[in-house]
C-alpha cells in the first residue's frame, strides 16, 4: 500500500445551509465507503477559503490566498491505495466532482536521505 493525498478544489461557497447539509451527507456516505474498505489513512478536514500566506526569505505575511473559487484548495484527505491508478479510481466517488469541482490525486513522495 502507498499513500496519496486528495486535494479538493471547486466547492461552491454560496451554497445554502440546506444544500450544504445535503452535500455533507454525501461526503459522509463516501467517507463511510472509503473507511470500510480500509483506504483512509487520515480523513483530513475541509479548510477555510482564506487565511494568511507567508512568503519568501523575508517571511512577509499576506492575506490570502486570493485565487479563483475553482482554484482554492478546499480540503484534503490522506489515502492508502495499491497504486496511483487505484487512488484515482477511489477519488471518483468524491461528491465535489458532481458539483463541478476537482480532486487532485498526488502520491506522497518518499524522501530517502
Amino acid at each position, binding site marked *: 500500500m502507498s499513500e496519496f493525498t486528495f486535494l479538493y478544489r471547486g466547492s461552491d461557497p454560496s451554497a445554502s445551509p440546506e444544500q450544504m*447539509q445535503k452535500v*455533507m*451527507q454525501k*461526503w*459522509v456516505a463516501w*467517507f*463511510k465507503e472509503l*473507511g470500510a474498505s480500509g483506504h*483512509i489513512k487520515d*480523513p*483530513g*478536514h*475541509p479548510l477555510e477559503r482564506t487565511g494568511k500566506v507567508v512568503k519568501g526569505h523575508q517571511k512577509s505575511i499576506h492575506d490570502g490566498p486570493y485565487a479563483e473559487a475553482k482554484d482554492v484548495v478546499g*480540503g484534503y*484527505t490522506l489515502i492508502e491505495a495499491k497504486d496511483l491508478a487505484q487512488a484515482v479510481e477511489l477519488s471518483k466517488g468524491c461528491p465535489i466532482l458532481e458539483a463541478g469541482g476537482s480532486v487532485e490525486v498526488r502520491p506522497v513522495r518518499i524522501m530517502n536521505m
Partner: protein
Amino acid sequence: MIAALTRVFGVHNLALAEDVVQEAFCRAVEVWRLRGVPENPPAWLMATAKNLALDTLRRRRTARTYAPELGRLLDSEWTRASVVEELFAAGAIKDDLLRMMFSCCHPRLREEAQVALVLHILCGFSVGETAAAFVISRPAMEKRIARAKKILAASKKLFDVTAGPEFLARLPAVHSALYLLFNEGYHGASAETAVRAELCQEAVRLVKVLISHPRGATSATYALAALMSLHAARLPARVDEEGNLVALSDQDRSQWDRALISEGLKFLELSASGSNFTEFHIEAAIAAIHARAPDAAETDWKTIVSLYDALMETRPSPIVALNRAIAIAQNEGPDRGLVAINSIADKDRLATYPFYPAAIGELELRRGRPDAARRHFRAARSLSRNAMERQFFNRRVRACGLRPSALRLDPRS
C-alpha cells in the same frame, strides 16, 4: 438526549454523556432566565446538547475513544457535524431509547439494577429520586448504579437492536423492568406515598417506544401496554382530593380515564395474536374486566377468579394467591374467601405486607365479626409503610365500630 449522546460518545463514556446533558440543562437555566423560555424547550435542549457534543469532540484529541461503530467519522470536520446531526434526528432518537433500554437490561445485572438504570438513565431520575423510588438508601442506590454502569461500560457497545435472536432473548428482561417500574408507581411502598403517577407515566412512555419498533411490538409487549394503560386509567380515582387511598370498590369510576381505557382495550386486542400467553395477558384481561364493569357489584368476579387460577399456574406467588382469594370472596362470599386465604402457600412471605391482614379484616367485617376485623386492621395499620396506608387502615379500624358496611375489598386497586 442521553441515549443519543451515548451513541455519539460510546457506552463506555456514559459519564461524559451525562455531563453534557447536565451542561445543557445548566445553560437552559441561565439563558432562559435572561431571554425567556423558548417556544420549543425540548428542541432547544436537544440542539444545545448536540452542539455541546460537537464542541467536546473537537476539543479532545482523538475520536478513537468514542463509539467504535462510528470510527473515524467523528475525527474529521468532513463528517463530524453530519454524523452527530444524524444521530440526533428524531427517528434516530427513538431507536436510541430502545438501544439504551435494552442495554440497561444487561443479563449480568440483577433485575433491580436493571430497573434502577432505566429510571436513572432513561427517565432522567436523579440518584436520590431513584433511591426513593425503590425504597432504599441513597448511598445504597449510588453503589447499585455505579456498579451497574461499570458493567454497562465493559460491554463496549450499545445493544444492537437489529440483531435478531439477541433482541428476542433480551425482550423478556425489558418487559420485566418496565413492569417493575410501573408497579413501583402503582403499588409503591415508598415512605412518602403509596402512589407515584410519574413512575407509571415513564413506564407507559417506554412501553410505547417499544411498541413503535416493529420488532418490539410482540404480543407480550401489547399485553404489557394493555395492563399498564388499564391500571393507569384508574389512577385519578385511586387517590382522592385529600390524598387518601381509595379501594377499588369505592372508587368513583367516572374519574377513570376513558381514553386510557380504550387505548388499553385496543392494546389487549392487539395482544391476542399467536399462542404466547404470558402473565401480562392474564393481568391485562383482569384489568379489562374491571375497566368494563360499572361498579364492584356488577363485576364478572367469576371470570376474574378463573383468570387468577391461570395466573397461579404461570406465575404463582403469595400476592397473586391473596388477590385470587379476594376475588373468590367477591364471587362466593367471605367464608370461601377466608378458606382460600388460609390455604395460601408461603403465607409467611406476606408477614410484612399490610394488605394481607387487611384482606382478612375485610372478610371478617363482612361475616359480621367487627371485633376480629378490628384486630386485623390494627395489624395492617402497624405494617403501614407510609402515611397514606396508615390513614387508609385507620379508617377501616374506625369502620369496625360501625355497622358492617358495604364490602370494601382489594384496596390495592
